């Protein structure tokens, strides 16, 4: 459905997107994840035919986004980051206008507006002027517009930003639903969101792709390097010294917790040091009140990879 090859975008001498390539199959939800300034919006603007790329190519449904831009635009529904709308129009007029721009007939518009109004819960405010709507309602009007012509590909730039928790949940469900019939590509910096609704994830930082895969894949790849947390009663010095002797231990951090010492150790991939820690405590006669393995979250992974990229860019 989407094929991106060596895509590059420069703003002056600043490299916002640096030679990225990926492909997206038809159907499903793709999450485009990255910290602020990563280049998500820039990539999305190239795919939605707003900005031309500085290098590389991108096709959507086989059409080139630059050379066959009108064909691409007909097949794509795009919700920009800031949800720009015409404030003086009523939501229904706006949707009518957008439908006409896409060459939809009167009947298609009427049924299309009925469909999106229901799916995006536009309710009675569809007949109110847009400048009287709240941020969340505007967001829904923008989403309704993107879905109006039943596009093959929906591109949503941070679709849940500015919504209340109920709306966020409803919108996520809607996107998951849409992913069953359409291809959806969304950007976000909220990890849990991507974990919940996306089938595929692309993590981007400082203009480069740092990881791709399903959220589960990424979590697995990282959780091998899980950490073990133990709460022990003993001298800091002793704990530090003794735990370091355990094979496979890479890092030990200690912190005081109400008279106990909270010991966090990370070990080499594949090493489970819980048993060693227990034996150690027994041997030394330390009191041990907690011993558990911390499953790595995608968040740890995200913070780690993006931090690496940020330092690369800073150099």
């Amino acid at each position, binding site marked *: 459905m989407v094929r991106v090859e060596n895509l590059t975008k420069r703003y002056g001498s600043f490299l916002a997107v640096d030679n990225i390539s990926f492909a997206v199959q038809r159907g499903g939800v793709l999450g485009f994840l990255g910290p602020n300034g990563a280049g998500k919006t820039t990539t999305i603007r190239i795919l*939605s035919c707003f900005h031309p790329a500085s290098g590389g190519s991108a096709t959507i449904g086989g059409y080139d986004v630059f050379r066959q831009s*009108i064909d691409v635009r007909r097949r794509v529904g795009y919700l*920009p980051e800031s949800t720009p709308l*015409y404030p*003086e*129009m009523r939501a229904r*007029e706006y949707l009518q206008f957008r439908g*006409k*721009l*896409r060459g939809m007939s009167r009947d298609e518009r009427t049924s299309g507006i009925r469909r999106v109004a229901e799916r995006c819960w536009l309710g009675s405010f569809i007949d109110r002027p847009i400048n009287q709507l709240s941020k969340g309602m505007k967001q829904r009007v923008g989403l309704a517009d993107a879905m109006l012509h039943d596009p093959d590909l929906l591109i949503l730039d941070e679709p849940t930003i500015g919504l209340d928790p109920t709306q966020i949940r409803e919108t996520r469900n809607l996107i998951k639903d849409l992913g069953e019939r359409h291809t959806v590509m969304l950007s976000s910096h909220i990890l849990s969101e991507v974990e919940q609704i996306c089938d595929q994830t692309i993590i981007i930082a400082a203009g480069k792709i740092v990881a791709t895969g399903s959220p589960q894949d990424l979590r697995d790849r990282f959780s091998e390097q899980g950490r073990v947390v133990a709460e022990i009663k003993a001298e800091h010095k002793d704990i530090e010294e003794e735990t370091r002797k355990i094979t496979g231990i890479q890092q030990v951090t200690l912190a005081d917790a109400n008279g106990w010492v909270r010991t966090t150790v990370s070990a080499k991939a594949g090493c489970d040091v819980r048993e060693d820690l227990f034996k150690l405590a027994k041997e030394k006669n330390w009191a041990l009140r907690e011993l558990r393995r911390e499953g790595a979250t995608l968040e740890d992974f995200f913070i780690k990879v993006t931090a690496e990229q940020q330092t690369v860019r800073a150099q």
Partner: protein
Amino acid sequence: MGIICTMARRELGAYFLSPIAYAVIAIYLFAAGLAFGLGTFANSAEASLRNLLEFWMVLILVFVLPMLTMRLISDELRSGTIETLMTAPVTESQIVLGKFFGAFAFYLVLLATLAIYPILLEMYGDMDYKLLFCNVMGLVLLGGLYIATSLFFSACTKHQVIAVLASFFLLALMTFASQGLAQQFDGAIRAALQQLSVRTHYMDFVRGLIDTNHVVFFVTTTSLFLFLTVKRLEMQRWQ
């Protein structure tokens, strides 16, 4: 064609919802009324619109049309709606022509309010309808050029004030200053500057003449500015 029409209708609709447009209409009606009253009846030797059309109307349009046009693209650049517009399956030419005709239609509505003056004159003397037709034609062509010029500046910046000031400046230069400038030169430059003067071309319409030369001047300059606007909008994508 359908898309241009859709765009134009949206713009026309937006005018009727915009408080600024109503303020501009009020200024326009007041100024036109004042100019008509002072120019026609004060020294009323002959009942004609000549005085109004020759100078006052041109001056009014130099101010009013940029104010009506400034919003058209600037506002989309400022609010970001340009992004939804330019990612819809429409070309830059369709956008520009749609906006142009939207403003133009609104201008025709403004012109229609002037119909009251010929009616007033009719009560005082006989009206020359051929002359009236030429006058209207001149105003229509003049307005088209002014709107196209202002539209170009509207596409250049997201700040409406800058767009409107730049339009005032260029329109005043093209309309009033180029004749004065021409006096400073001789020969070819003088002829060229006179050719470029909008008022030179407009005057014959006021006198009741339709010269294809003048029509061609207005049509080509208007098209030139529309073309520049399209190019400007295409460049916008690269930023």
